[in-house]
């Protein structure tokens, strides 16, 4: 069973960090995974996105026309990737930075003000981890042990931020 994800936002929102952490969590769960950081003209102008495929079998569909999940951390990402969500797929939106509108009726929407939640937590930089926590809840429980390892791998040069991020992840996971 293959599932695919796009995470998108602007530079500095930690898009690639949570993308890489998500890919590591899948890897630690012994799943097949491919992780592509956005590669091309879109890199310019501050937009950042990455694409992740996860499966219990070898992954051969390396590039997808449409994906199961999109996390959009700002309005530009929402506008750009709304059409990339599969029918019955899910659009997870940072409603602090994007309008609550539903241009398609064949997909699911989750609007959460991630930036505000992060500010409440005391650090706007935690926006991304809250979003990852929300995604984890939809996907079913990740092993917390693997989540921790994922953060440790990716944030190995910023160890002081690991616990803070895991707290934010858990906050996202427990929202609603």
């Amino acid at each position, binding site marked *: 069973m293959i599932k695919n994800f796009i995470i998108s936002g602007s530079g500095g929102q930690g898009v690639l960090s949570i993308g*890489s952490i998500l*890919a*590591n969590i899948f*890897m630690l769960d012994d799943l*097949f*995974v*491919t*992780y*592509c*950081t956005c*590669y*091309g*003209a879109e890199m310019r102008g501050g937009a950042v996105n990455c694409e992740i495929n996860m499966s219990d079998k*070898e*992954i*051969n*569909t*390396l*590039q*997808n*026309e449409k994906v199961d999940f999109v996390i959009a951390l700002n309005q530009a990402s929402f506008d750009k990737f709304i059409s990339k969500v599969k029918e019955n797929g899910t659009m997870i939106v940072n409603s602090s930075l994007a309008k609550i509108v539903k241009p398609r009726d064949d997909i699911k929407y989750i609007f959460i003000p991630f930036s505000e939640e992060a500010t409440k937590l005391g650090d706007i930089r935690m926006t991304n981890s809250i979003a990852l926590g929300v995604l984890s809840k939809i996907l079913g429980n990740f092993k917390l042990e693997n989540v921790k390892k994922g953060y440790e*791998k990716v944030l190995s040069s910023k160890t002081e931020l690991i616990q803070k991020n895991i707290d934010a992840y858990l906050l996202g996971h427990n929202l609603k």
Partner: protein
Amino acid sequence: MSEKVLLKGNIAIAKAALNCGCSCYFGYPITPQTEIGEYLSAKMQEKKLAYVCAESEVAAINMALGASSTGAKVMTSSSSCAVALMQEALSYAASDELPIVLVNVMRAGPGQGYIFPSQGDYNQATVGGGNGDYKTIVLSPSSVQECADMTYKVFYLAQKYRNPVILLVDGLLGQMAEPITIKDNPYPNIDNSSWILNGAKNRASRKIHSLEPNPSILEERTLKLHQKYLEIEKNEVDWEEYNCENADYIITAFGSMARIAKSVADYYKTKGLNFGVFRPKTLYPFPYDRLRELSKKTKIFFDVEMNLGQMHKDVCQAVSQNSQIFFIGKPAGEWLKQDEIIKAIDNIFEGQYATSI
């Protein structure tokens, strides 16, 4: 060593190179392969190995040429339009019988093109852009794991045959991360004491040169090189088959495109059609014989490439005359996706054949 790590193809190549004793790297930045040089710049300085930020790709490959004459394991990496600049030195290295490893993480051409992923350098790598009767061994990985494993192999083949070897990597693979295991280098070191330049101490002085004003010696030398290429063709052909035995249709593809081809074959299996995928792992030497053998049973081939038909001519040369070969490809830009290939094959089934989509 056996722990899984999530790595980009570029980093996997750099790590494997260090692991198998690469002591010299010379390079010049170009997207999408720059991470190889960035990674090695830090690690090699730490280990007091040879790393030079060369003034150009021309200088980089010539530094590699000099370094390889000392018997060191030597690598340079670059991309498409800049690999074009290196062709002269590859011809020299082949003539001088010097082992150089060149990693080409392909981008789109012709000319400067762009950093989009592409497979446009099949001809450049396998046919070569240098002068004279020479060959370069070319390996093509299709996963990040293979990027690492084949890095070990290209160093080994370069030393074994004293010949330049190219690792031809799709831009997609250089930039994509997958969980891989960095294994130990499985290949032995090759004794090079009979030819390296390390000072004429207790032996006669040696000279390494391609200039040869004597016509019969030049002819003899070129024939000797040719014999070596025949030996490489006999010994080193490598490929992967995916459900090819008894397949009614075979998709030929190289690099990461072969994986997308597998997903296409899987799709047709659900429709009750018997599709196989044939992937050359060595582009030179090309697995002509095996493909010819398969074409005795399979009559329809689809050659899928992220270019306008470069491996296509080798596939045509390989398969029997009774087979039909359809080409599906497109120039670099957006990567050719599973559903586009399926649509093209469906169109072919319906008799609407176009050479590219």
